[in-house]
């Protein structure tokens, strides 16, 4: 074998990964570096010339009311949506984990919302929640409740989009935690039973510790993907009415596309990048065991 062939063989892993690396450079690494760079310039969307202004954009957004408002909306949105999804999903998983007839049918029915495009799901809910022709307000009226115009009322808009998020992603929590529950060895339950533990003790001492890595994994996925979420709000409320549903990622797109401030939009996205990186680093270390 020639030395060339030998060297080739030693580098097989790199060669196999190379095409993917090149593509990722183009569609991810380059744009991220570009975003880092533009976030330090006064680049506009419709102009090619720009000046380097160091951290001007960051100072600008960190001292603006708009930014902190978006942070507030995002925190509220994510905390509510992920909180409800985790609790409701965990509850459903526990219910489906018992001796149950028709579990596979329930699994399919609960899976369906998760497989809908969130943008489309948001349209479907917009028609269900429509104050003049939707079924929800009609049904509520039958039992004597005058419901608000959910998505266009500034008092209910945020809770309504949270509700749509909950509809889409509670199944994710439920299905993953159910799988986690079912992989807990039966023996552990039998041992606990022999030791005379009651239902609560079994849950606290066997189920919960065994399920913890899976819970953190689900939390990681939901937190990150919820922070990044854009589709539901863009379709259902466009950040409105006013700015009550303007989350960080929606504000980033408004800054970049509507206001054409590429530099500031870059600063928004870089801020979100560090938030997401921080959360995933924190939680990833707790769940690495599941992958490796």
């Amino acid at each position, binding site marked *: 074998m020639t030395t060339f062939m030998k060297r080739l063989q030693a580098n097989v*892993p790199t060669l196999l*990964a190379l*095409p*993917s690396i090149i*593509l*990722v450079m183009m*569609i*991810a690494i*380059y*744009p*991220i570096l*570009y*975003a880092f760079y*533009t976030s330090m310039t006064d680049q506009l*969307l419709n102009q090619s010339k720009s000046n380097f202004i160091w951290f001007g954009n960051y100072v600008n957004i960190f001292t603006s009311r708009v930014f902190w408002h978006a942070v507030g909306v995002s925190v509220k949105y994510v905390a509510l949506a992920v909180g409800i999804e985790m609790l409701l999903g965990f509850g*459903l998983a526990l219910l489906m984990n018992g001796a149950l007839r028709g579990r596979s049918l*329930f699994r*399919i*029915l609960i*899976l*369906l919302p*998760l*497989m*809908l*495009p969130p*943008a*489309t799901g948001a*349209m*479907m*809910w917009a*028609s*269900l929640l429509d104050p003049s*022709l939707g*079924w929800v307000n009609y049904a509520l009226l039958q039992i004597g409740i005058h419901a608000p115009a959910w998505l266009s009322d500034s008092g209910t808009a945020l809770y309504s989009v949270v509700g749509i998020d909950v*509809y889409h992603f509670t199944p994710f929590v439920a299905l*993953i935690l159910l*799988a986690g529950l079912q*992989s807990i060895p039966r023996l552990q339950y039998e041992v606990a039973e022999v030791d005379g533990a009651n239902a609560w003790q079994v849950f606290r001492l066997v189920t919960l510790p065994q399920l913890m890595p*899976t819970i953190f994994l689900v939390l990681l*996925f939901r937190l*990150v993907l919820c*922070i*990044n979420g*854009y*589709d539901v709000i863009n*379709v259902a409320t466009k950040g409105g009415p006013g700015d009550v549903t303007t989350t960080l990622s929606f504000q*980033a*797109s408004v800054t970049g*596309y509507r206001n054409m401030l*590429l530099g500031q*939009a*870059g600063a928004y*996205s*870089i801020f*979100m*990048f560090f938030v997401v990186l921080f959360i995933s680093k924190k939680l*990833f270390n707790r769940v*690495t065991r599941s*992958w*490796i």
Partner: protein
Amino acid sequence: MDTAIEGVVLSDAERAGLEIHKEVVSPADRVGKALTYVVLIAYSLFSILPIYWTATLAFKAESEIYTKTPKLWGFATTMDNWREVFAGPASIVGVDFVHAIRNSFFVTVPSVLLALALGMPVAYVLARYNFKAKGDVHFFYLSLYFMPPLLILIPLFVLYNKIHLYNTYLGMALVMQLITLPLVVLIMRGFFEDIPVEIEQSARVDGARGPWVFWRIILPLVVPGMMATAFLCTIFSWNNYLFSYLLTSGENQTAVVRITLYRTFTGIMWGPMSAAILLTIVPVLLLAIAIQKYIVRGLTLGAVKG
């Protein structure tokens, strides 16, 4: 032979015995059981309500849609909404939805094939080779999946306009790799790891070469997992809204984006829109049911085997 049959009969009897044992339940247990079913059935109804509601709108005449007393059943049906959706360029609303479905197809198929072609080798390397940066490579692909989309899309919008990938199927298939590539790499890694190393080693001992072993021994073993992964990529790619919303325009946008165009200046065309929604989601839901055995593994990128 006889003992084996006896064994089976015995364990059946045992199982029957256990079932009889289980039949003895306290009234409290029975109430709990009934409550479980009530909650699960209620939640299932909540799950399908929007889908069912959309299906009714798709078959309702205008007078049945724009009413203060909407009906969930027993309404007059019509096929008008479907005619509008399939009208193509002759559409009254001005949305050529057949073309939009075609766009989704031409974006989805190449993006899935590309992800498999690029991702399978990486997955194999992660599963079979040991190197220091393995954990980092894994985390890197996961972070692609977790990246705030606008961080990448705004610069990519500028770049795509420069290199003429804006508004093209190729550009869409490339950017879709942000989602499909991590799916393939991380899920397939698990499927490769499920194959015992010994199978591969014995093939090599028999004198088979690297690429041959991969094509004829390994690949056939991961085909079910690969199909499930490909279907999941298809669903994610088909369902994606943001990429097409920001990187294409007009007639070239995918179905999920074009659906929102039934919101016209004069009002929302709920009937045709609902028909368009059904046309878009039903194939995806069928695919999802087909791979539901693998869904947990897929959705957690291989972390929970399910």
